[in-house]
């Protein structure tokens, strides 16, 4: 099994090399057979990597300790599904997953583009092959998942108990799907630069790939936050760890890209900007991987010190030089023929939205790298942790909420005063009323006050968009409200999917504001029968329960929860000690509703049987998760392919009618 695994990796590397060379030689010399060989070589690489994945997965589930990777990451008592998830718990396994996903995506792209993008495709394959070769070289020569242990053991090191959580099964693969997914638009951008085919075709061809990558990066980040909240036992969900930052930065730049490509698609503008954005997004995914794997920046997520750092730096440097060279030499081709018509227009609002998103990514990158900069300048290593990022990102986040409300309501090309007033009068009124109401309710800190009031402003702008669109359909088409609304969103899936995503984002912002600004915390030592009160909750300590298995010792406290004098249930926070890993872990108790979470942490027990209980009331945390679900739903809705039209002569729109239609849509702006 080990030999087959090693051979599979070698075949994958050879095939990927061949795919790159055959694609380039084929397109340069117009050899169709070479191009076909290149495509088939990529399929072969995918097949070989699939075999490697199956073999490593099987070895983990069967606990084959002959493999060093298996010995390091599983133990006899580890359930099979966690044993399988160890595939991405370590350095070599996660790199194999990355390579496999990349070969899978490359194969799908080849199938998708069998009859289109024929000039771009060989360069796309060559670019993807180049990336894949780098990962395969790492797997083959630096951190081979099929490395033999060399001696016999009967028990492995086991999986870190923190990673033994269902969220952990899906969180890393989701992030990898996002990271690797961004390789596809990046490869198309590079192919467009090489061929100088710099119209919007490459963007249209990869829009769903970009959304797919963005969606999974979003899911990965939300799952990570949920895991941290449930598993780490400190009542928070985002710790601004360098690796968390590493997954957040490409998300931010990817979000900017998703917005600015609309300007290129509609106006044929911002070409150089869009190419640069997708290149930066992809480079940030590689930088994130470098941070996780090099050990150069201390992180709770890192795979520890390794010799991968210089290789990743070299790869990153090569990508920067190559992309930079292509963009610089094609700068004339990237120039737009069109100019902005007005300062107050959708185009400029998107540019400022991009500024804020890129600014946020820059601020986070700056903070993440500042310890290295400080060490280089002052010779003193410092830490840049949550207080820094909270201070820096909160005002940027508030600016982003404001732009989320403003951007979609400003017309393309030029917004008139009438348009501006019509779209913003009611939301502005909502904002002022919300502001006054929150002040009366006792919210006096400027950031939560602005965040919550602006969130309602944005929600009202979105509501108005749905309302106006539905009302127009009811008026012109005679549809009832349900039909009008469903036809509206089904017909303009992309736009209204985007609004649904915005609703999800705003709910997340509300959840973050509530849980960080209005949190209550109390810690108390409780003897049996003692009670503690926090806000309108009363907790009565009923006693403890202890048990021990071969792997873990567990201490669970039972607390009766009452809210406003009404019985809610029994909470059971616990503490566990894992013998094999010599590690203590906290299992929190969360009693959740949309209003707030009662979050209970068992600190420990003294010799008299009294327990230390830390209780938190975390308001509106549930809104973050629900916002996440809505955001995911909205993205899926926006990327869902439209129904294919039947070919009928009466549906063919003549060019002049099409032009009129385009112009009319610009004219009527947001009314549709």
């Amino acid at each position, binding site marked *: 099994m080990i030999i087959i695994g090693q051979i599979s990796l070698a075949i994958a590397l050879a095939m990927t090399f061949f795919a790159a060379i055959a694609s380039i030689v084929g397109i340069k010399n117009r050899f169709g057979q070479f191009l076909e060989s290149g495509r088939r070589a990529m399929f072969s690489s995918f097949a070989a990597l699939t075999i490697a994945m199956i073999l490593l997965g099987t070895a983990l589930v069967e606990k084959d300790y002959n493999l060093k990777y298996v010995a390091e990451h599983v133990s006899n008592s580890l359930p099979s599904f966690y044993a399988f998830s160890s595939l991405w718990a370590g350095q070599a396994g996660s790199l194999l997953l990355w390579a496999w996903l990349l070969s899978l995506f490359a194969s799908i792209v080849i199938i998708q583009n069998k009859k289109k993008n024929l000039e771009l495709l060989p360069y796309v394959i060559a670019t993807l092959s180049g990336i894949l070769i780098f990962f395969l070289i790492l797997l083959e020569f630096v951190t081979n998942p099929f490395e033999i242990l060399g001696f016999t053991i009967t028990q492995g090191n086991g999986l870190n108990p923190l990673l033994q959580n269902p969220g952990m099964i899906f969180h890393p693969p989701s992030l990898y799907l996002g990271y690797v997914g961004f390789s596809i638009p990046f490869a198309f951008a590079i192919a467009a630069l090489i061929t100088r085919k710099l119209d919007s075709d490459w963007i249209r061809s990869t829009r769903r790939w970009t959304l797919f990558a963005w969606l999974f990066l979003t899911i990965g980040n939300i799952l990570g936050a949920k895991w941290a909240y449930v598993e*780490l*036992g*400190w009542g*928070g969900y985002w*710790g601004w*760890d360098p690796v968390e930052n590493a997954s957040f930065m490409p998300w931010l730049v990817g979000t900017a890209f998703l917005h600015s490509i609309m300007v290129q698609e*509609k106006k044929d503008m911002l070409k150089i900007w869009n190419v640069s954005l997708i290149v930066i997004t992809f480079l940030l995914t590689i930088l994130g991987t470098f941070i996780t794997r090099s050990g150069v920046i*201390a*992180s*709770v997520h890192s795979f520890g010190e390794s010799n991968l750092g210089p290789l990743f730096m070299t790869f990153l440097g090569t990508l920067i030089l190559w992309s930079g060279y292509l963009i610089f030499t094609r700068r004339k081709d990237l120039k737009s023929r*069109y*100019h*902005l*018509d007005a*300062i107050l227009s959708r185009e400029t609002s998107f*540019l*400022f939205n991009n*500024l804020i998103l*890129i*600014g946020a990514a820059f601020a986070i990158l*700056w*903070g993440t790298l500042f310890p290295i900069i*400080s060490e280089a300048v*002052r010779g*003193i290593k*410092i*830490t*840049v*942790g*949550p*207080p*820094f990022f909270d201070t*820096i990102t909160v005002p940027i986040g508030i600016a982003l909420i404001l732009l989320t409300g403003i951007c979609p309501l400003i*017309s393309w*090309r*030029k917004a*008139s005063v009438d*348009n501006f007033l019509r779209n913003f009068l009611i939301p502005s009124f909502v904002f002022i009323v919300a502001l006054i109401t929150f002040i009366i309710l006792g919210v006096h800190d400027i950031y939560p006050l602005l965040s919550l009031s602006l969130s309602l402003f944005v929600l009202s702008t979105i509501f108005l968009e749905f309302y106006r669109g539905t009302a*127009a359909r009811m008026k*012109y*088409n005679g549809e009832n409200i349900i039909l009008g609304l469903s036809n509206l969103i089904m*017909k*303009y*899936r992309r736009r209204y999917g985007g609004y649904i995503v915005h609703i999800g984002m705003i709910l997340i912002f509300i959840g973050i504001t509530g849980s960080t600004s209005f949190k209550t*915390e109390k810690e108390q030592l409780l003897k049996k029968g003692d009670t503690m009160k926090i806000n309108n909750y009363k907790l009565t300590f009923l006693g403890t329960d202890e048990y021990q298995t071969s792997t873990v010792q567990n201490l669970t406290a039972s607390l009766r929860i009452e809210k406003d004098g009404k019985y809610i249930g029994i909470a059971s926070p616990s503490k566990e000690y894992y013998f094999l890993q010599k590690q*203590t872990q906290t299992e929190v108790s969360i009693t959740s509703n949309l209003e707030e979470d009662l979050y209970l942490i068992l*600190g420990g027990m003294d010799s008299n049987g009294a327990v230390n209980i830390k209780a938190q009331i975390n308001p509106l945390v549930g809104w973050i998760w629900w916002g996440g679900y809505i955001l995911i739903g909205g993205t899926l809705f926006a990327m869902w392919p439209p129904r294919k*039209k039947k070919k009928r002569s009466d*549906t063919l*729109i003549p060019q002049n009618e099409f032009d*009129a*239609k385009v112009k*009319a*849509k*610009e*004219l*009527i*702006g947001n*009314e*549709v």
Partner: protein
Amino acid sequence: MKNKILIIVFILMIAPSLAFAGTNVSEVENNLMCTCGCSMALYSCECSTADKMRAKIESMINQGKDKDQIIASFVNLYGEKILSAPTKKGFNLTAWITPFLVIGIVGLILYKSIKRWKEKKPLPNVIESQELHQEYGDKLKKELDNFNDGDDI
């Protein structure tokens, strides 16, 4: 006079508790990192090292030390690295200022560029005012709604 003495006695009585209320463990631990090597902020770490650090903070609070004194004693012991955020002085100030400075400068450049682009020759057939075309717009919209084009343009 009697009332004044009573007020002074009352203030002296509540002073220590006010001092205690002024500094608590959470307030201090927000500013420190755990020293176990986990790279987590102290408030978010649940390891035994973190527990010992919290106990130490609590004992310093009981000794009457305030937040700044406690943080300073940790910095003396472990160096600047134990702080969860850079100080706002000297070179470290650049950490705090740079992001906003960059956003501000780029924003200004962007605004100037947009103004310059706008001043360039306008495109032919530019629609200058929406109001002028409202009537045609409504007509066209009605017609367009009959086109089943599936998606936003």
